[in-house]
């Protein structure tokens, strides 16, 4: 009898910490969620990307929460710096004791914190950082709730080739991993279609003139240009393209540039009329499809100046709430992860493509729409000349 009791006590001791970890961050009526974003530093503007999910949590709470539990967001600053990001995630895990993590904007930070999150075992749904390496190779508890760099890069090249008679494609990009995360999959898709880029140009960050690159591109005579450039450099590139009489060549940009912002930067529609960007949403910023989401954000955050970044985390937030709902009132981390893996073709009402997670693939969004100016108005496109 004594021996049985000892074995039982031993098993209990082993089981107790596991049970505690499974329900860490949960109370009868709350779910504590750790939200990471760069609230300070050079990349602080990316913190806008988390505003959508915060507003969505507020909305869900106003409607009674998830299975009676309110969603409590605990925000931590990563400053887009790996060391600071590591401190943030360790604080969320061991001091704030959150149930799960949601967010993070900078891929460098996400890559640095991945081993910590993987070891801790709590679920992490990535809301903005796009590098494929964050969720591939597969980690059982890490999910990508937005199109990754490879999905976006491929979508860029797919769109380019939907334009009739496009054979000569040129690429201009920054020399950083962010740019490569778009250009490498785009190149791979072009290669699959038997197309080699006719020109490969590099434009460094902070460059204020693109003449040298444009003269090279002019020699190559491309039908379409893929530009993996940040917004400021994109504006300079488009301005110089017009200066050399090449603004009739369409340019395909990344999700890192906003169509309306680019128009504001260059100042005239003619310069951007052939500029297209990856746009992960069902509608343009001013369109009817995004209007209710925009109203929801400004209801809870009245000072928010809406841009496409403001909506970036909404798709993943819808998936998180769906999985929490399906996990039921006896919520555990394992149940939540299992429910995330059951999400199949979830139409979020905000993302242009559905979310599907499986046990073998945690990169949930496999494509993106494209936005461009049609008749002078920002328009979301499925393919060249085909409205979404």
């Amino acid at each position: 009898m004594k021996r049985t009791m000892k074995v039982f006590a031993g098993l209990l001791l082993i089981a107790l910490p596991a049970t505690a970890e499974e329900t860490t961050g949960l109370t009868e009526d709350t779910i504590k969620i750790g939200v990471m974003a760069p609230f300070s530093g050079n990349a602080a503007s990316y913190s806008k990307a988390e505003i959508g999910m915060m507003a969505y949590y507020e909305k869900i709470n106003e409607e009674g929460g998830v299975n009676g539990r309110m969603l409590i967001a605990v925000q931590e600053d990563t400053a887009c710096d790996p060391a600071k990001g590591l401190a943030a995630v360790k604080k969320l895990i061991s001091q704030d004791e959150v149930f799960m993590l949601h967010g993070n904007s900078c891929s460098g930070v996400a890559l640095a914190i991945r081993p910590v999150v993987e070891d801790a075992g709590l679920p992490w749904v990535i809301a903005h950082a796009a590098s494929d390496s964050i969720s591939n190779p597969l980690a059982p508890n890490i999910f990508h709730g937005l199109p990754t760099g490879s999905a976006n890069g491929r979508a860029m090249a797919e769109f380019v080739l939907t334009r009739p008679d496009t054979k000569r494609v040129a690429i201009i990009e920054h020399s950083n991993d962010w740019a490569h995360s778009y250009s490498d999959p785009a190149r791979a898709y072009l290669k699959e279609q038997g197309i080699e880029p006719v020109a490969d140009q590099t434009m460094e960050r902070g460059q204020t003139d693109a003449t040298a690159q444009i003269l090279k591109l002019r020699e190559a005579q491309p039908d379409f240009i893929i530009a993996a450039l940040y917004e400021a450099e994109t504006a300079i590139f488009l301005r110089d393209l017009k200066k050399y009489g090449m603004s009739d060549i369409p340019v395909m940009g990344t999700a890192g540039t906003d169509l309306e912002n680019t128009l504001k930067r260059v100042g005239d529609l003619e310069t951007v009329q052939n500029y297209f960007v990856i746009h992960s949403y069902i509608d343009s910023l001013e369109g009817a499809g995004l209007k209710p989401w925009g109203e929801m954000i400004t209801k809870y955050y009245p000072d928010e100046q809406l841009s496409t970044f403001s909506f970036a985390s909404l798709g993943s937030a819808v998936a998180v709430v769906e999985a929490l709902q399906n996990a039921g009132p006896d919520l555990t981390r394992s149940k939540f992860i299992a429910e995330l893996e059951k999400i199949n073709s979830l139409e979020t009402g905000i993302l242009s493509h559905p979310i599907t997670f499986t046990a073998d693939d945690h990169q949930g969004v496999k494509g993106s729409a494209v936005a461009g100016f049609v008749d002078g108005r920002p328009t979301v496109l499925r393919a060249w000349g085909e409205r979404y």
Partner: protein
Amino acid sequence: MMPTQSQLRLRTVLFWMVPLALLAVPLLVNSYVQFIVNSVLIYALVTLGFNFVIGNLGQLAFANTAFFGIGAYASAIATTSLGLPWLATIPLAGVAGAIGGFLASGAALRGIRFYYLAIITLAFGELMRWLYVHAKSVTGGTDGLSLPRETVMGYSLTDDRVKFYVFLVVTVLLFKATLNLLRSHVGRSIMAVRENEVATASLGIPTSRVIVTGFIWSGFVVGCAGSLFALHTSYVFPESFGMLHLIISFAMVLVGGLGSVLGAVLGAAALTVLPEYLRSFPGMEELFFGLIVIAVLLVLPQGLASLLRRVSPIFVERFYRE
């Protein structure tokens, strides 16, 4: 007031007792606090090395971040490409940093001083960052390098508590070595150069060699700190070694006390822990951080170390210049 013989003995005892007492830290704190404590140890070394050049040698040189990056990359490359165990890469990173120090001292050897030396060494740092980005086959480019997971005698080096013990040993050894160096003939020559380079040369001391030695030691210490940083974050990428890091290191030197070894610890501790407290004010951290640094420097222009000197002569450093 200079410390008496008994106070000097007490200081020696304290030097060894404090690290011994710190051995208990991992038993008392959670993973987050442990991470911050580990950061303090790393930045204490960074500040010590930086202070050695600008505080002890008196050269306005800003290659510190370059040495830090060189050390971190040396460790990361040695573990990922050469397959060396991380522990073995610490001295390697120190030597790489020392070579960086030797190269950075080239400008000083040509008689370049003050603002000109500052600009040249800043450019050296940016040149190194360019190299990290463009030597992609070795450095991983902008993707950076992830360190492999390792164990030492069965203990995982991903565990912050295990890291702490390694970091503590390295930090104590390098602080002791720096104190010994400052007490040696070389150390006194270094401070003589700071006080008056021409007068030092007139005494037959080869000032050029002294300056090179100062840079090399600074590079070695900061290079070792870079190696610790590589393990600390398990991930090395170019953005970690930019201008912001340099400014914070410089602030650590000034807040701690220019030329003070004790100040290196105090400055690093203050400016590592403070931003963590300011986490509670998202979006306001930088403002508060800046105001607090300004306030400290206005009230204590000789840094936090001067505060301790007022408390007890034990904390008076023999070669510190008021």
